[in-house]
């Protein structure tokens, strides 16, 4: 079977872990997130008749004051930046993280705007959003609460990872 390492990044409280919980059931406690900064789950998806096992590295939420463990990105085939549409600041922070990741490795990226079940309360216009989205290989609107678009988003991520060339 083909296995791919993918990373989930984003500011604190945007719903990364909730997205993963929607998608998989793992064996590790979420305490890992606060102890070593990452928790790993797995999910097998099928892309073009090929089974791909995604190893999801759910990384501790980052903010402007603390970076993230770039070493955890090593060997990743793709990554997700998760932001929260109810908090405008998360997109700015997400973009900063995206920039940091790009400095480390050149792999496909996916922008996920989470909490689509709530009304968007940020001030970004459609044009501004499109501008940001252009920095990513793909984007998705998800709701970890309702499960909307979550499966599709991870399938897209698997496709990106499967099609990518590792650094």
């Amino acid at each position, binding site marked *: 079977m083909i296995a791919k*390492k993918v990373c989930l990044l984003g500011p604190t409280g945007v719903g990364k872990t909730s997205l993963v919980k929607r998608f998989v059931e793992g064996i590790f406690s979420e305490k890992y997130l606060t102890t070593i900064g990452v928790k790993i789950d797995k999910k097998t998806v099928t892309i073009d008749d090929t089974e791909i096992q995604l*190893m999801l590295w759910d990384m501790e939420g980052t903010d402007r004051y603390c970076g993230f463990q770039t070493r955890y990105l090593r060997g990743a085939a793709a990554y997700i930046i998760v932001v929260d549409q109810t908090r405008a600041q998360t997109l700015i922070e997400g973009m900063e993280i995206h920039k940091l990741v790009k400095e480390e490795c050149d792999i496909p990226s996916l922008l996920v705007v989470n909490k689509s079940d709530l009304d968007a309360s940020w001030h970004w216009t459609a044009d501004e959003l499109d501008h940001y989205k252009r920095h990513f290989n793909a984007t998705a609107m998800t709701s970890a609460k309702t499960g909307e678009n979550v499966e599709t988003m991870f399938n897209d991520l698997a496709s990106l990872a499967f099609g990518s060339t590792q650094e």
Partner: protein
Amino acid sequence: MSQIEGPDDSQQDAIETQTNSSEGIEQDSKDMQRVRDLLLGNNRDVVTSPVKQDARSIVSEVFSEALFDRQKKDGSVDQVILPLVENSVENSINNHREQFVGYLYPLVGSLVRKSVTAFISEFLEKTNELIENSFTIKGLKWRYRAWRAGVSFSEYAASQTFQFRVKQVLLIHRKTGLLLKSVAQDHQLNDNADLVSSMLGAINDFVSDSFTSDSKDEEQNLGVVKTDNFTLLIKQGPYALLVAAVNGNESPHFNEQLQTTLEQIHRLYLNELVEFDGDDVPFDSCEKPLRDCLINELKPELETKQKQPWIAIILAFAGIVALLYYLVLWWQNESLVSEIKKASPPAGVIIRTIEQDGVNGLSLEALRDPQSTPIEEWLQQFKIGERTTQIKQELYLSAAPQMIQLRVESALSSFSGINTSWNGQVLSLSGLVTVTEYNDLQRRIEAIPGFKESFTLNMRNVSVKGEQTVNVTTQQQQLYQNALAEVQQIQFDFPVATTVLDRTQIEKVQNLADKIKELMLLAEINQYTMGVIVIGTADSVGASGTNTELSQARAEHVKSLLVEKEVASNEIMAVGIGKVELAQVATTARKVLINVVYHQNTLGHTEREGN
């Protein structure tokens, strides 16, 4: 040319095919030479020269693949290239020694440090085990066994210490943390091996990042993760990690084996490791070397424990038999104790306690009248058998009628002429004795404790003999005299200036009353008339009149007490004589004295004083 070139290519292929077949060359060389001559004649170079011109590009296109295929096929490429490379490296080192030292120094330094650290850590661990086991019973056993086996203690201890079981081996891609191959003793362990691998990779990264030093050359990696139950041994390679989950204490040999296996995998699968893109299929063939690492080293002791421990079984059986025998003895003894407790002891014996003394003996505490049956004799009726009996007895005088009778019988045994007859509460004696014996007999029988309380003595049928024959009347008179003496010797003492007896003196009143009644009985038998005079006295201190009153009051007091004890009032006279004027007793004469006036009745004869 084009017409020529077409056939030339096919001919060249044919030629190469032929060339590759040494047998064909040998067998057909002459024929081929002839064919070449016929086809190409003297213009052979026209064909070969273009091939030679393009040889470089032709070979370069397939060079790597050809080497790979040939190496895979028979490994001969190694054999060819190895000496060349060795020579090249040797020459290079000889010519550029300084540069090589510069390249290798950091590597060798790090390697040496790691090696020395690993050695010291294993040495310390081994030493700790040795110390722990040197001063225990197990340590002594090991010393003995090592001595018997002819090996050093340290060798034997090491062989006993490093017993372990490798439960799972994981091959992990270093960069991605993805699982390449996993083998386990228990297949269930493989279910989450991929997650564990990734997490281990993450933890390794975490450790590296947290503890790394400034110099990138000294990246810190996890070597061992140890818990109470198992140890994770982690061997780090450039592209892969080899992780073994071990129960018990792994041996240094196993560490070496893991390291060797990891190196072997790097050697065999270098390309696959470098180009790994998530597909673990190429590593399926790693199963064999990984499975070789699933080692079970069982202690020889454990194997021998599978054998039946006959000695222990026999000892246990003997123990059970002994226990049962003990229980039977205990039960028999307890039954005997219960039987004895239920039985009535002989008269004059009171059993205070009886209990088992071990399982083959009795312990008994009792009170026994000297006249009663000995306890040992009584116990004979029970099935004592060989049991030991410890009897602790205290002597006492029993008030049981049987015992009093026995005592009487015993007392009478020295009087040969006396016969006894028990009639209810009356002991009737008969026979012929001397006067002395008569008195002695009466005294001794009445002195027997409890006799007076339970029995009445009848001695009317006892005849008295002497040197002169004494008739019955004389005997009775003698008895009267004896009783008279006893009555008259009784005195009561009073404290100064009191007319009432104290407690100890009052107790004597009953005795006096009994004796007076007995005396009256004897008086009647002897046909005497009698009266009792109770005489009160006083000491010489004080006025005479007062003393007379005191003495009179004392006499009246004693008389009243006697009347209470059913002595007829009209047969007692109380008189106070005042102070006693005798120098010897004058100061202590606060008494009441008893005197008896009697005389023989004479029919029709009555004398009166004063007439």
